[in-house]
Each structure stands twice: as structure tokens, then as C-alpha cells.
């Protein structure tokens, strides 16, 4: 068993905080790559948007 995991008597593994964060980051990365396709039509509207910083 990995050092980042612990298990209880019923055999279910509890992920460490570090591992959970890694999984979350992975999901987010996947989400970002998918949203470009999913939101393509809407994102197109902002191709030449002006940006103002105050």
C-alpha cells in the first residue's frame, strides 16, 4: 500500500490530502482541455474584446 493511503477494517482506502489534491488538479486539467471545445461558440464572441485596467 502506498504511503499516501491508509485503510480501515472494511478495506476501503482513504486518500491522503496530497493525493486528493493531485487528483483534483488532474480533473481540472481535463476540464480545461474539454471546455475549449464545449464553449467554442461562446468564446468566439470575445476574440477581439478590448481590455481596460484601472
Amino acid at each position, binding site marked *: 500500500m502506498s504511503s499516501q493511503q491508509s485503510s480501515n477494517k472494511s478495506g476501503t482506502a482513504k486518500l491522503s490530502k496530497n493525493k486528493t489534491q493531485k487528483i483534483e488538479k488532474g480533473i*481540472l486539467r481535463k*476540464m480545461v482541455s474539454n*471546455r475549449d471545445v464545449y464553449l467554442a461558440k*461562446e*468564446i468566439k*464572441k470575445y476574440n477581439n474584446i478590448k*481590455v*481596460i485596467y*484601472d
Partner: protein
Amino acid sequence: MKEYVRILLFSFVTSLLIFIGKNKVPLQFLIDQDIVSEEINMDLFQTWLFFTGIAVSGLWIPIQYAKLKNKTSAQFSIFNDLLAYNKENHFKHLKESIKERNSEFSTRIFKPEGGIIGWWNKQINKSVTLKLIHLEGISDTFHYRNLQFEVRKNEAEGLIGKAYAEEALCVDFDLTSNNYFMTKAQQSKLGNVRFCSAIPIYNNKQSKIIAILAVDSDSQMTFDEEKRKKWEEQMIYYAAFVDKHINI
């Protein structure tokens, strides 16, 4: 279309039953045409038709309507939860990318006033009023019931008004240093908000701004060039996400 025809036909049949139940002419016509037997007890038959019509239109249709309404509201609730979940993920990623993990951001949506008043203001007063609206799953709680910004010919109130007037993604890192033609009441309602960013949401033809999406925070922030790029990218994604899922 099929569903419309089905419902209209069903409603028409129940109305017809009530009509035949109260009027002898149609039933007499059916007897004359030998469709219905002459030996029938007309009064009893009419009473049955009348009560059947009443039962269907007074009970069955309202029950179906209530069931449909409950189902729709349950589905809306699931959809709003899904929106909120996606929003949470978006902000998690946003905070991660600009290295502001401890800052809290709030979302507000402002909509140009419509109807006769909106039309009158636009045509006669040459102004547009942007009103705060609440969209379930997207908008965060605001402590005041209403907040609005006016956009006139030469001045636009607030960063929201500026984003509308300039049709631009606007970012201000310290709202306290800029007045943006805001009234005392507007400033007081904004309270401790320091950072604000606003972006327009367009209609499908991209000919009209249908809303302004604003993201604000009580924390003061400063972005270097790299963070600015990331913020712009995230705001565009967020605006596109709201645009796709919300019917404003």
C-alpha cells in the same frame, strides 16, 4: 409539436363532452344520424357526459399540470446544483492559476432594464440602467435588494457601466481609488469591495449586450503581466460558461 396537438385535442374533447352534456342539439343530431340509439335515456346520458367532462378538466388536467411542474422544478434544482458545482470548479482553477488561493470572489449579474421604461430611457433619455439580478447557481448573495448603474451619453456609473459603455473587459484592482461617477448610495452598497472585474455578455448575433458579468472581491490584488493574461482568459471562459447555460 406533437405534444401541443395532443394537449389541444385532449382539452377540446373534454370541452366537447361538457357541451354535449348541456346542449341537446348535438346529441339529437347523433340520434338522427343513427349513430346513437333512439332508446337511450337522453337526460341520464347527458348528465354522465357532463360529469365526465368536469372530472377530466377539473381533476385530471390540473393533476397532470402539478406533476409536470414538480418534475420541472426538481430538474431545475438539479441543473442549478450542477451550475454551482461547475462554478466552484472554475473558481478553484482560477485561484490556482493566479496564485490567490485564499481570496474569496463573488459573482454578480447586471441586466439592462427592458420593457417600456427601458425603451423610453434608451430612446428619449439616451441612457441605459443596468440592474442587479439574481441567477440561481451563478449569482452570490448580495446584502442589498437592489443595485443599479446608469450609463448615459458621456458618463457611465461604476465599473459595470464602464464595461457596458466601452464593451470591454474592465479590471480595477482598487475600487476605493476610483469614483466612476458613482453616487454615495452606490458606494455605500459596495461596502468593502476592493477588486472588481466586469465583462459583457452578448446575444447570439453579438449585436447587443444582454448582461454584464462582474466578479469582485474584498481583497486587494495586484497582477503581473502573466497573471493579467490568466485573469483575462478565465473571465472570458466564465462569461462564455454563463452565456451558454443561462437564459437571460
